[in-house]
C-alpha cells in the first residue's frame, strides 16, 4: 500500500500530464505535479518506517516478477528522490519552461522520479534493468526539449544524444550481464542472489559478470573515462533536469553497484575492485583539475560531480563496511549538494544569460545575499567541509581505502587513499575559485552595492533553497540517522558475501 503510494502518484501524474492535461497552463500543471510529488513523499516516509514488500508474477515465462521491497540501503535514496522531486517541482514554479508545454515538462520530471523510485525499490534483476531504463526518455526529453534556450539546437541535440547513447551503452552491457546472471544462477530475485553471494558461480564467471555489470553502472555513475557525457548534459539541461540528473540519476549507478554487483558477485567484484579504485581516484584528480580551469559554471559543477562520485566508487571498491557506508552517505550528500548547486547556478545562469565564469557579474554576496549564502554553503559542502554533509562520505571513503578489505591489494588502495586526499585539496581549489569569481568581489555597477531584492531569491524558491541548505547542515551535524539506517543492511550484505562468496 505504502509502496503504491510511493510509486503510483508520479506515474499517474506523469501520464496524466502527458496525455490528458496537455494544453493546461503552467500553474495547474505545477500544482498537479506538486500534488503527485507530495503524495509520493508521504509514501516514501511510510515505506521508510514500514518497509513493505510486494512480490507477484509479471512475465512468468521470463521469470520476471513485480518484486518491490525496501531496506536500509534504499531508504535514504528513496527519501532523497521523493523529497527532491517535490522541491524541484516547487522550485520550477512560476517559470514557463522554454521549448515545450509545461505539461510535458512536469510530466517528464514525474516520470523521471518514478523511474528512479522504481529502481531503488525493485528487487528483480531484470526488473531492475527496466526501471533503470525508465528514466531515459523523460530525462532525454528534459535535456533535448527543455534545455538551455540560448544554446544552439545542435548543442542541445548533441548533449541529449550523448546522454542517451552513453547511458544506453551502459545499460546494454548491464542487460547482458543481468541476463547472464539470471541464466547462470536460475533466479532473478536480487535478495536470493545476494544471499547466495555467487556461491554457485565459478571465479571466471564471477569476473565476467562483474565486468559486465560494473561497466554498465560505471557509465551512469559516471566513472572516469566514460564521464564525458555528463558536462554537456548538465550545461544544457534545464535547472530541474540538472538537479534530477545529478541528485538522482547518478545515484542509480552507485546504487546498482551496491545492489546488483557487489553482493551478487563478490568474488568477481573483488578481482576488478583495484581497477575500479584506480579509475575512481583518477576521476577525482582529473575532474578536480578540470574544474580548476573550466569556465562554464554548470560544467564545472558537473565535473565536480564526477570527482565526488569518484569518492563514492572508491568507498565501494574498498570492500569494507565502512567503505560502503561512506559511499551510501556520499551518495546522499552529493545528491543534496549538487541539487542545491544546480538550483542556484541554474537560476543565476538564467538571470545572467551566461554561465561563463570570466564574464559573470561579481559580488553575489552584495547583490543577492541569499543566493550568495546558498552558493557558499553549496561549495563549502562540495569541498568536503566538516559540519556539512559532504564531509563524512569523503573522509570515510578515504579511511576505507586506507583500510581496504583483506582481499584487496592494500598498498595500491593506500596509494588511492593518498590520491583521493589530494583530490580533496583540489576540491577546495575549484570551490574557492568559483566563490572568488562569483561570490566575493566588488559590485561592478555603481548602484549595485546595495542588494536588489528583485534579483535575490524569495518566496517558495527561497524556502526550497533554504530547505536544501538546512539538509546540508543537518546532514553534516547529525550523520548518525543516515548511517544507522544503512548500517544493518550493509553489514548483512557484506556478511553474506564473506561467508558464502569467494569459494568457487
Amino acid at each position: 500500500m505504502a509502496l503504491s503510494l510511493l510509486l503510483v502518484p508520479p506515474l499517474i501524474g506523469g501520464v496524466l500530464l502527458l496525455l490528458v492535461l496537455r494544453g493546461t497552463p503552467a500553474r495547474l500543471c505545477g500544482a498537479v505535479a506538486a500534488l503527485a510529488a507530495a503524495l509520493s513523499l508521504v509514501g516514501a516516509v511510510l515505506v521508510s518506517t514500514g518497509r513493505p514488500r510486494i512480490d507477484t508474477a509479471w512475465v512468468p515465462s521470463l521469470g520476471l516478477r513485480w518484486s518491490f521491497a525496501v531496506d536500509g540501503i534504499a531508504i535514504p535514496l528513496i527519501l532523497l528522490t521523493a523529497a527532491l522531486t517535490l522541491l524541484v517541482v516547487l522550485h520550477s514554479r512560476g517559470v514557463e519552461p522554454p521549448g515545450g508545454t509545461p505539461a510535458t515538462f512536469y510530466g517528464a520530471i514525474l516520470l523521471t522520479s518514478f523511474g528512479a523510485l522504481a529502481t531503488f525499490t525493485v528487487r528483480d534483476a531484470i526488473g531492475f534493468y527496466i526501471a533503470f531504463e525508465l528514466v531515459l526518455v523523460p530525462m532525454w526529453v528534459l535535456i533535448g526539449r527543455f534545455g538551455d534556450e540560448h544554446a544552439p539546437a545542435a548543442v542541445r541535440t548533441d548533449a541529449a544524444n550523448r546522454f542517451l547513447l552513453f547511458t544506453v551503452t551502459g545499460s546494454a552491457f548491464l542487460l547482458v550481464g543481468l541476463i547472464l546472471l539470471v541464466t547462470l544462477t536460475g533466479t532473478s530475485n536480487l535478495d536470493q542472489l545476494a544471499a547466495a553471494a555467487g556461491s554457485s558461480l565459478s571465479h571466471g564467471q564471477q569476473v565476467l559478470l562483474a565486468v559486465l555489470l560494473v561497466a554498465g553502472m560505471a557509465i551512469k555513475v559516471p566513472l572516469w573515462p566514460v564521464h564525458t557525457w555528463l558536462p554537456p548534459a548538465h550545461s544544457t539541461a534545464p535547472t530541474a533536469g540538472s538537479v534530477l540528473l545529478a541528485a538522482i540519476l547518478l545515484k542509480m549507478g552507485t546504487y546498482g553497484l551496491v545492489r546488483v554487483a557487489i553482493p551478487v558477485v563478490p568474488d568477481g567484484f573483488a578481482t576488478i575492485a583495484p581497477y575500479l579504485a584506480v579509475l575512481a581516484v583518477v576521476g577525482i584528480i582529473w575532474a578536480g583539475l578540470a574544474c580548476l580551469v573550466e569556465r562554464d559554471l554548470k560544467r564545472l559543477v558537473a565535473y565536480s560531480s564526477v570527482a565526488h562520485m569518484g569518492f563514492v566508487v572508491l568507498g565501494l571498491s574498498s570492500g569494507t563496511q565502512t567503505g560502503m557506508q561512506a559511499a551510501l552517505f556520499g551518495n546522499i550528500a552529493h545528491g543534496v549538494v549538487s541539487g542545491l548547486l544546480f538550483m542556484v547556478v541554474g537560476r543565476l545562469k538564467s538571470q545572467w544569460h551566461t554561465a561563463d565564469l570570466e564574464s559573470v557579474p561579481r559580488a553575489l554576496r552584495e547583490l543577492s545575499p541569499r543566493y550568495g549564502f546558498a552558493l557558499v554553503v553549496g561549495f563549502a559542502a562540495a569541498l568536503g567541509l566538516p559540519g556539512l554533509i559532504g564531509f563524512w562520505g569523503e573522509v570515510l571513503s578515504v579511511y576505507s581505502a586506507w583500510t581496504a578489505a583483506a582481499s584487496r591489494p592494500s598498498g595500491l588502495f593506500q596509494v588511492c587513499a593518498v590520491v583521493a586526499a589530494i583530490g580533496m585539496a583540489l576540491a577546495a581549489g575549484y570551490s574557492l575559485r568559483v566563490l572568488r569569481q562569483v561570490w566575493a568581489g566588488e559590485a561592478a555597477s555603481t548602484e549595485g552595492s546595495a542588494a536588489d531584492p528583485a534579483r535575490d531569491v524569495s518566496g517558495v524558491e527561497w524556502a526550497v533553497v533554504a530547505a536544501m541548505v538546512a539538509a546540508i547542515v543537518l546532514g553534516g551535524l547529525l550523520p548518525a540517522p543516515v548511517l544507522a539506517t544503512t548500517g544493518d543492511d550493509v553489514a548483512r550484505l557484506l556478511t553474506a558475501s564473506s561467508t558464502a562468496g569467494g569459494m568457487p
Partner: protein
Amino acid sequence: MHLTAPVLLSAVLAGIGAYGVLARRNAVLVLIGVELLLSSANVLLVAMSTQERPYVLSETTSVAMYGGQVMTIFIITLAAAEIVVALAIVLAMFRVIGHIDVTAAPEGEIEPATDEPVAAAASAGDPGSPAQGVSGP
C-alpha cells in the same frame, strides 16, 4: 542402379543455373538460370526417389519413395507460377523503364544519402533545420 550420371547432371545444371543467376544482367537470362536451378533439384529428387534406402523406416517407405516424384511435380508447378509472374513483371519493366537489366541502379530513389557533419551518432534531421538532407529529385 548407379546414380552417378543423374547426380552429375544435377550438379552441372545447378552450376550453370547459379552462374546464370549471378552473372547475367538480362532478366530473361536470370529467369533461365533459376529454371536451371530448379531443374537440377528436380533431377536430384527424381533420381533419389528410385533408391530405397535401409534407414528409411518401413512405415513411411511409400511416402519416401513417391515423395521425391511428388515433390518434383510440386516444384514444376511452382516454377510455372513464378515464371508467369516474373515474365509479367519483366514485360511491365520493359514497357515502363525501357530495359530489363536487373542489376541496374533502382529507379525512383527519393533521395540519395547525404554526408552530414554529425557530432553524435544521430543528429541528422536536426529539428532546427528540418529540410536538411532533402535535396531532390
